[in-house]
């Protein structure tokens, strides 16, 4: 997803703007007004905890599937993947495959069982048959860390991207954009809860997929609806401009081990992302949870096929050098293509969709983190499980306000940073710290508290440590073109881990630590395991939808 807003080369200087900022702002304002109206209408009845955290579990599988697509397809997977394909051809396409295949892990192993066992958060499932307090704290910690880095990446990307599309120049203006985006998002979450957030994601997903679909048909119509012609023309155009053969592998990923490591994080990370998991609680049954994933897989898959066409279309119709020299760099491929095809209006629509995307994704992350703070930390740890639902929701709203403020401030600080490491970290942590514990607790009889703690903290600490000492943070050689190092920090080099992504080490480590921790501890509760397993497979005792 935003893993691709990678080197985000100088998101800052945006003197040259394409299109008409007034149109862009107008269409975006329309989106905000419409979604606000829907959020307000949908959220009149948001007092109970199940309403606030899980939208009353009353969404259908199809609605939730569309919302999942809206949550998952961040601005970066639209702008980033299209741009990566336009510049690096085949290698850009590889990202989308990992992101899609990852959903099979969620479909086959996680979604339905999780829906049956849990209530509001990921920690509900992880702590079900283990010692509540320590496991909840661990699961909430990793939820917060993953969501925070993901959030920061979105906000940082939002500032630069949105500023580019609106023609807002200078650091002050971009900060203002981040603040405005953050405030609207906070309102959606606090007022709308999960129900409001879900509707924002649904509307956004529909706009995004229709917008990308229209552009795809438009591009294909220029090449006689032949993918082969499009590929051929794009490659020729690239080579004539002194570029590379876009169909050859290896343009973006030079180090095979690094790419394998990244692929592991992509394919195993999705089913451990807390904001994705929490969406499964918004449907009434495990069968609807299954439907959600089926819908999500179709929508996400089709969308990635669109980006393949858009990327090669941009390579041919816009050209690599124009894209690279545009203010948003690689990420501007899709907007530039929209401008090329449909002028200011289409650009305005596509820009508004990009805004909407950032809003929807950030809202989903904020509600997840606030739910975990309130339900896992405040209720279970502070109040010993005795908080009333009203108190919990109150705390969750407060947490959303604080987290929103943190996201705004963090986004301002992260502005112009290389944000790839944030998202790589989010996926790698999700795959290393969350996925092993989720799978063990669902499928391994013997699994116990020590195994969970070792796995969560081990995965968390190892992935963060390896990122800190990776070339992403320090020590990449200076790029003669920009005269800057692609690393996050300039002028220092303390890296000793050779890879950009820690997955190949930290994911197996998470699994191994979970195993060793388990077998060295005697703890085991047969009764709780029976309850969990019976509930996960049959749905007996699972949370039901609220009626009102």
């Amino acid at each position, binding site marked *: 997803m935003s893993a691709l807003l990678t080197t985000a080369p100088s998101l800052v200087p945006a003197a040259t703007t394409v299109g008409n900022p007034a149109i862009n702002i107008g269409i975006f304002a329309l989106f905000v007004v419409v979604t606000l109206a829907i959020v307000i209408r949908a959220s009149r009845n948001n007092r109970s905890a199940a309403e606030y955290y899980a939208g009353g579990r009353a969404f259908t599988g199809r609605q939730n599937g569309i919302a999942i697509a809206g949550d998952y397809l961040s601005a970066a997977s639209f702008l980033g993947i299209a741009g990566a394909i336009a510049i690096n051809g085949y290698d850009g*396409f590889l990202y989308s495959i990992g992101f899609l295949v990852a*959903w099979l892990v969620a479909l086959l192993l996680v979604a339905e069982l999780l829906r049956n066992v849990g209530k509001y958060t990921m920690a509900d499932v992880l702590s079900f048959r283990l010692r509540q307090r320590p496991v909840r704290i661990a699961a909430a910690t990793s939820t917060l860390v993953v969501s925070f880095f993901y959030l920061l990446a979105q906000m940082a990307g939002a500032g630069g991207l949105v500023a580019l599309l609106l023609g807002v120049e200078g650091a002050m203006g971009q900060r203002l954009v981040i603040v405005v985006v953050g405030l609207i998002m906070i309102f959606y979450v606090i007022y709308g809860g999960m129900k409001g957030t879900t509707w924002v994601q649904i509307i956004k997903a529909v706009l995004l997929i229709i917008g990308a679909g229209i552009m795809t048909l438009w591009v294909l119509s220029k090449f006689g609806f032949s993918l*082969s012609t499009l590929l051929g023309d794009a490659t020729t155009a690239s080579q004539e401009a002194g570029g590379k053969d876009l169909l050859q592998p290896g343009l973006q990923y030079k180090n095979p081990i690094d790419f*394998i490591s990244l692929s592991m994080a992509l*394919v195993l990370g999705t089913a451990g992302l807390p904001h994705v998991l929490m969406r499964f609680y918004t449907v009434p049954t495990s069968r609807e949870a299954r439907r959600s994933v*089926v819908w999500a897989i179709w929508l996400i898959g089709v969308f990635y096929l669109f980006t393949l066409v858009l990327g090669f279309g941009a390579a041919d119709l816009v050209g690599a050098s124009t894209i690279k020299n545009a203010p948003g760099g690689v990420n501007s491929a899709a907007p530039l293509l929209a401008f090329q095809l449909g002028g200011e209006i289409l650009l305005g629509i596509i820009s508004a969709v990009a805004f909407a995307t950032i809003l929807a994704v950030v809202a989903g992350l904020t509600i997840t983190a606030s739910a975990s703070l309130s339900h896992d930390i405040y209720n279970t740890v502070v109040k010993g499980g005795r908080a009333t639902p009203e108190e919990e929701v109150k705390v969750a709203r407060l947490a959303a306000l604080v987290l929103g403020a943190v996201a705004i401030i963090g986004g301002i600080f992260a502005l112009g940073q290389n944000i790839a490491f944030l998202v790589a970290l989010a996926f790698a942590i999700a795959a290393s710290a969350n996925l092993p514990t989720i799978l063990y607790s669902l499928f391994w009889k013997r699994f116990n508290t020590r195994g969970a703690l070792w796995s969560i903290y081990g995965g968390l600490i190892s992935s963060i440590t390896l990122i800190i000492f990776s070339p992403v943070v320090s020590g990449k050689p200076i790029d003669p073109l920009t005269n800057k190092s692609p690393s996050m920090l300039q002028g220092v080099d303390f890296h000793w881990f050779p890879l950009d992504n820690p997955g190949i080490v930290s994911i197996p480590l998470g699994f191994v630590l979970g195993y060793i921790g388990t077998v060295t501890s005697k703890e085991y509760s047969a009764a709780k395991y*029976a309850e969990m397993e*019976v509930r996960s497979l049959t749905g*007996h005792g699972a949370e039901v939808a609220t009626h009102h």
Partner: protein
Amino acid sequence: MSKEAPDRVVDDLNVTMQNSPEFAQLRSKFRKFVFPMTALFLAWYFLFVLLSVFAKDFMGTRVLGNVTWGLMLGLLQFVSTFTITMVYARWADRVFDPEAEALAQKMGGQQ
């Protein structure tokens, strides 16, 4: 709403159910479907990843017009993902759900 977090009341019904042959059959049916399927799609995905980094010449060879082997196999990843999704959803709707629901009913339905 069902039982609340830490002081969960444990009903022995669950243990009885878990030890029953019907439940063992349901579990094994589920695992026999999802585990091999998971192994299959992960193996196929990592084969694709390995080919992309270690067999670049092959993946860059054009096979159908300008479509290379790499793109072709990549698109086949989409096809296989869609196929597995449909096959699983169909199996779960028709085979798994009725059996799981029968056991849930036997335990007294949804509270």
